[in-house]
């Protein structure tokens, strides 16, 4: 494993680190296909008004979630943002409760009390999805501190978008993690756009996260976020480093969201040529081709796609069959005793 701190990896496919068997790669393919098909379904259910409120899709960015999840230990922690469906599912959370949560049903992951932007499954190590930009970076530091204090060798992996690098909490968390040598991996999913504004237009450096790394004594790392193998490799290295007590990492994964920022945004502000360029770099067909080259058969891959499709249909039915949350949930769980009582 390379540990040379001066080493710079820019826009290169990282090939060092542990390698995956074909079987493991097929599973990483399955995960990406599941995330894609799930979110396409979620989008359709929006159009049919089954899913209310807002939603932020990761379509086009699946390789990051899949690559990291494959590199994480079961008891490691994920901290996600409001664009968190993919990171939640990638950790093994079943589709039905996630979809039911989006639909505001009682069989939802949080019984409908959180919604699309706050997916959480503690039993799967998904320690929350946070919808205030930057807020969860310090929180991930806290989980990492707890692992360090208790000596559990758990690692916190914290995903965020490129827009996050310009908010104060990002810088507080990076410095804090570095000085306390915390086992946390910060992952900037750089999809080039904040909401409607190109990140480069509002950021003082070219590479929004990687160019900030040196300010915190960290290696500057950029990885092709549309290549699950490359992501897996970089993730494994950073996670191993964290687990070994060598401190945090900051990884910038370059990617692109195929859709707009959120449900309300058709993404028209982006030049057609740019969108076309990135659609051509879609991580899923790319991975499909690679697996064929590496010895998988077309039938194997099609079987995976079909199985996922059946599972998504089933999850849709199960989610739709869920009841509306019962009224007593309204006044539950403000406090640890399960209640909402603030006076006697």
């Amino acid at each position, binding site marked *: 494993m390379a540990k040379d701190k001066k080493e710079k990896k820019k826009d290169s496919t990282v090939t060092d680190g542990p390698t995956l068997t074909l079987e493991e790669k097929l599973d990483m393919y399955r995960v990406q296909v599941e995330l894609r098909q799930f979110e396409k379904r979620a989008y359709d259910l929006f159009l049919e008004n089954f899913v209310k409120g807002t939603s932020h899709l990761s379509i086009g960015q699946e390789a990051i979630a899949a690559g990291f999840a494959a590199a994480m230990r079961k008891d490691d922690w994920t901290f996600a943002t409001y664009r968190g469906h993919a990171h939640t599912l990638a950790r093994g959370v079943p589709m039905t409760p996630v979809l039911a949560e989006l639909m505001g049903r009682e069989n939802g992951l949080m019984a409908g009390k959180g919604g699309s932007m706050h997916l959480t499954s503690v039993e799967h190590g998904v320690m929350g999805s946070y919808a205030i930009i930057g807020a969860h970076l*310090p929180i*991930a530091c806290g989980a990492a501190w707890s692992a360090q204090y208790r000596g559990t060798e758990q690692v916190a992996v914290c995903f965020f978008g490129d827009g996050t690098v310009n908010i104060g909490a990002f810088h507080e968390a990076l410095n*804090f993690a570095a000085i306390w040598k915390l086992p946390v991996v910060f992952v900037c999913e750089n999809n080039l756009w904040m909401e409607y504004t190109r990140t480069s237009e509002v950021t003082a450096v070219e590479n929004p996260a990687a160019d900030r790394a040196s300010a915190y004594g960290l290696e500057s790392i950029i990885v092709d976020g549309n290549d699950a193998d490359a992501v897996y490799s970089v993730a494994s290295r950073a996670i191993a480093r964290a687990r070994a007590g060598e401190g945090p990492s900051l990884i910038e994964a370059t990617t692109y969201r195929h859709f707009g920022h959120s449900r309300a945004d058709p993404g028209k502000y982006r030049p057609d040529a740019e969108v076309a360029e990135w659609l051509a770099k879609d991580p899923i067909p790319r991975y499909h081709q690679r697996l064929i080259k590496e010895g998988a058969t077309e039938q194997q891959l099609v079987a995976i796609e079909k199985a996922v499709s059946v599972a998504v249909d089933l999850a849709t039915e199960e989610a739709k069959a869920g009841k509306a949350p019962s009224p007593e949930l309204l006044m539950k769980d403000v406090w640890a005793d399960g209640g909402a009582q603030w*006076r006697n």
Partner: protein
Amino acid sequence: MAQLTFREAIARGIAQEMRRDEKVVFLGEDIAAAGGVFKGTVGLYEEFGGVRVRDTPISEQAILGAAMGAAMTGLRPIAEIMFADFFAVCWDLVVNEIAKSRYMTNGQMTFPLVIRSGNGGGLRFGAQHSQSVENWAMMIPGLKVVVPSNALDVVGLMAASIRDNDPVIFLEEKALYASKMEVPDGEILDTLGTAKVLRQGTDATLVALGNMVPRALEAAEELASRGISCTVVDVRSLVPLDTQTILREVSATGRLFTIEENPRLCGWGGELASIVADEIFYDLDGPLVRITTPHIPLPAADVLEDMAIPSVERIVETVFRSMNS
């Protein structure tokens, strides 16, 4: 039994719980070897070491984020925000993250953490180091808010806050740090959500919090000499709020005077007055009166600051006039 200052009581309460439970850890700015800017944490670093008592950079969001992440994964962190005014730079962590996450996750997470902070005026520090923010904290669903008024309560309520499974905002009145009292030896554990009746009277009930409690007691003494017999209730905990004790004591005298250091608008006394008006209106013999800091930022000059924060004289005059009108 030993004479203990309010500031020594802070360290005593924390130390008692750190000895008892290894999961209790403590972080903040200048809290370790320096012993805190108000010297409220002297000796903790020496006893428990740098792993459990840990200095941080000036990064309030990182401090509270770290506390939250540690709490959700099984520790019982205590975080210090040096001056309560500084909550404004990390309020997102308090309000959107710590306070909401248990509810949002349908009870999947608990946050057994304490955020201590130096609160209130009287030290001539000017507007950005003097505000009483108990009303900021009180209005947020998901936060418990504790404001002790004396050293004994500091120890017991600190212990109760650390053992509590919910986030507690523990406000330490800066003006009281030097105050002293006899505190028994041995373990002290109090109960959150319990008000204390400190003086029993027949004519009026003065309900006070934190730094206003000693002033209410002194005012009650003075008022007694002018023929008005006052009950004094120390609220101690705004959330949970011991409404029953307060309602009982207000019913008994028929008059409520709240004595609040927070600026007037949306101060805790407004909520209390509303509860009293709703629930025991027909027990009242006169108007509900709030004695508060005016709706202004606090000035630095001693003369002006003393005019702003409710003084013993202002309490006495206000109660006296109201009782005789």
